[in-house]
């Protein structure tokens, strides 16, 4: 995973996005005192080891007409939650799928997924389709549409490295989400 302070500096430098320029990795390299080749090698390693889950274009759903987004929470028997989680993750409409702890008596749900759609109706249709296909009708669920967005921006990873590298961290530009719904 992360091997040294340069890895942190690199994550910090790329998390707001690559510059749109002919040699973007060379520009990143210059910022953090590495060569272009070193930047590419490190990014390939971080991608291969799975720390970087995906490397590419991150689209803005809302700007592209996907204005409705719902978090669906389900109460699935513990013995089946892994199986159901893996199953529903395969559907194109599902974007994020996590198991989280229940709070007995308060919040019985243990499986979370996110569905984006161009309208609330579209999200419902997709959910009903998913329920049918995966035989989820018997399980209690709630659908939590998003209303207002109070804050959305990237996790500040470089901050987490303070102290480990004598505080020599570049400031991370904020504004875009990097880790989704940890």
């Amino acid at each position: 995973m992360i091997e040294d302070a340069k890895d942190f500096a690199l994550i910090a430098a790329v998390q707001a996005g690559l510059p749109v320029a002919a040699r973007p990795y060379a520009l990143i390299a210059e910022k953090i005192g590495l060569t272009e080749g070193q930047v590419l090698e490190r990014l390939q390693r971080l991608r291969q080891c799975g720390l970087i889950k995906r490397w590419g274009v991150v689209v803005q759903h809302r700007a592209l007409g996907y204005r409705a987004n719902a978090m669906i929470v389900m109460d699935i028997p513990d013995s089946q939650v892994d199986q159901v989680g893996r199953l529903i993750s395969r559907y194109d409409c599902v974007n994020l799928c996590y198991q989280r702890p229940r709070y007995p008596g308060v919040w019985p749900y243990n499986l979370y997924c996110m569905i984006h759609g161009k309208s609330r109706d579209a999200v419902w249709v997709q959910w009903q389709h998913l329920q049918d296909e995966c035989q989820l009708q018997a399980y209690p669920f709630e659908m939590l549409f998003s209303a207002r967005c109070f804050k959305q921006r990237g996790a500040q990873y470089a901050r987490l490295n303070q102290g480990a590298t004598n505080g020599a961290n570049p400031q991370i530009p904020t504004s875009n989400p990097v880790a989704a719904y940890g």
Partner: protein
Amino acid sequence: MKLSPLHKRLLNDFQQDFPLSSAPFNEIAQQLGVDEEQVLDAFAELTECNAISRIGPVITPNAIGKSALVAMAIPDHDLERVAAVVSAIPQVNHNYERENRFNLWFVLIAEDKNRLDELVARIELQTGYSAMVLPMLADYFIDLGFELDLHD
């Protein structure tokens, strides 16, 4: 903005594996049979109109630090105050109102679990409401990006 066929391909085809090579935009241009300049212009336009938030990494949850989803049930009249308190904390991102009795949902990220617990305690103290901490136990989703329906 009206999206051109080139815009659509750039949006859909490079979410998973954007080239990790010295001249990535040129590599894309060659794949698509257009000039590098056209690709650079099209990406600049997509950025300009907010169709893309960035070209860059999506980090695996909890690969760096410890994060958790947190939910709070706040009376409507107090929601804006509490949301502002929460948003002001640098370790908070994705702070949303959702339609539920638990109506405030946000993600906290900290160095480790102890620091995460401290932050939650601070939020409860400052807001006067309790927080339900929902760390990820398993991640089932293989992130291949988001397939856009760009036909309408």
